[in-house]
């Protein structure tokens, strides 16, 4: 075994470099977000350290030639869209995964139909949906045509997460409830759901983050009211400014907050399950 120690160090060193590669642009972005404004551009050297661009994002900076990001409207839209997508795709994913627990004819076709949703490039779906809406005379909007495509994208993730959860789940507990005459809907609420809750939480997290950052599907389908990623894409064509970097840092902090809430809920759920289990053991003893 000891001759593998060298390899272990080598791979460890490589992994450290790899992580540095992943974080490099991120670090540069963080540094440049403190560029002096409004004259300082999104490049080195730093003229003077300042929080100007953070104030600019918050709408607190004095007016300048650089237009502020449309945070208030675009961010509200993006978050509402992500929330609706999360709810609908988690429900659909759970229902479909529940159906897959019994064998049925055509399960392969349905499986790949659902998984196709995460495999088709967004730009194709956006184009197809825009064509359909155009022919049917439907106005394209973020809450309509864009929303349904977001669900097409996130529902497969929710489905796969739930399928993995159901696959390693003791079904005898449910069967016990059924044989005692508890109706299926009630069994689901009282027995199945508490057991699959961690999976549901992960599916929700997936859907929320994917939809919030989703962009190629939204580009052709959101109409004139833009979401946050489309607003950012709009700045690609013109000059970019460090306010985008400041915004990126702020959204990352926000994401950490969401991740922390997820971690806490997950921890609570496992602790409660453990507590219930030890209660049961005490009862038996």
């Amino acid at each position: 075994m000891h001759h593998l120690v060298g390899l272990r160090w080598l791979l460890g060193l490589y992994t450290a470099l790899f992580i540095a590669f992943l974080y490099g642009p991120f670090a540069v972005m963080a540094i440049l977000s403190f560029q002096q404004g409004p004259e300082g551009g999104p490049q080195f050297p730093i003229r003077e350290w300042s929080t100007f661009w953070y104030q600019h994002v918050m709408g607190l900076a004095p007016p300048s030639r650089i237009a502020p990001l449309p945070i208030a409207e675009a961010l509200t839209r993006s978050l509402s869209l992500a929330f609706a997508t999360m709810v609908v795709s988690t429900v659909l994913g759970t229902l479909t995964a529940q159906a897959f627990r019994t064998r049925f004819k055509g399960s392969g076709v349905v499986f790949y139909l659902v998984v196709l949703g995460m495999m088709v490039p967004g730009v194709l779906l956006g184009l197809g949906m825009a064509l359909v809406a155009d022919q049917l005379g439907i106005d394209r909007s973020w809450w309509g045509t864009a929303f349904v495509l977001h669900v097409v994208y996130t529902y497969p993730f929710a489905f796969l997460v739930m399928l993995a959860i159901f696959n390693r789940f003791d079904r005898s507990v449910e069967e016990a409830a059924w044989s005692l005459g508890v109706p299926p809907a009630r069994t689901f609420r009282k027995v199945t759901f508490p057991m699959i809750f961690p999976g549901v939480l992960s599916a929700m997290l997936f859907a929320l983050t994917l939809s919030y950052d989703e962009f190629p599907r939204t580009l052709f389908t959101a109409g004139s009211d833009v979401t946050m990623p489309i607003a950012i894409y709009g700045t690609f064509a013109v000059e970019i400014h460090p306010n985008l970097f400041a915004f990126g840092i702020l959204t990352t902090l926000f994401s950490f907050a969401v991740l922390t809430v997820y971690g806490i809920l997950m921890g609570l759920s496992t602790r409660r399950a453990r507590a219930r289990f030890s209660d049961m053991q005490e009862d038996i003893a």
Partner: protein
Amino acid sequence: MSAVTHDIPEEAGRESFWRRNLHFFLLAPGVAWMVLFLIVPLVMMVYVSFWTQTTFAINSTLTTKSWAAFFGSETYYGALIRTLRLWLTVLVLTFLAGYPTALFIGRFVRNKTLQTVLLVTCVIPFWTSFLIRVLAWRPMLGKEGAINIVLEKLGLISGPIEVLLFTELSVIIGMVQIYVVFMVGPIAFMLARIDDSLIEAARDLGATPLTIFRKIIFPLSLPGVVVGAIFVSVMVLGEFATASALSGRKVNLLGNIIVTQVGSLKWAFAAVAGVVLTAVMAVVITGLLRLVNLQREL
């Protein structure tokens, strides 16, 4: 008496009808959603690719003119070739760059918590908007960018390297960094699942580390490689934002063609590019799925 005997079969019949068709009711909403909002748009795209394009509109007179224009034009045909070349390059590079990391996390880190911490560390950059992450490469690669500054300070180069930004190379660097994690995750997952006793047995029988890797570890990690390759392929083939942001619109992929054509209301033409892209995707994905049964791996 007859009422009782009559009652029981009916009750059982209703029960089994509900049970027998339960999966149908559970599946209906999801399947309907996918047919309406996934299949219909794709079919519509194929259909529209045969419509007639006038200056600012399309009409449903069928023609193959847009198809002929696509394959007759050096620009568009070239975009197809470029897309394929870039996809292969990025796929190979993400595999080469990602596998050692996955091997380290999956096989050499024995502590489960540390494993999770390392994987989460790799995923954290994903919590920043995709587009902002792409833009962050500009101050990194530019003529006065971080890489050139560092290399010059170290005295490794005398003048700035200019090929780093607004070239195909910058697009490749950007894409590898953005998508490599999708390779690392599935591979590390499969590697961590390998039974240690299998490797011990091989070692007891005198297999060298290289043989163990070649005959056991690598074949067992292959489903992870395929899943990673599917993720990377799907995302790279449909790309356009990274290409336009990091190449200064010099590198045009099929995705870029679709975006420009839609921008100038050339719907039929955009649809042709879309169908070509779909065909490429279909071949790639079915080819990869041949190698592994996705449904069984879960």
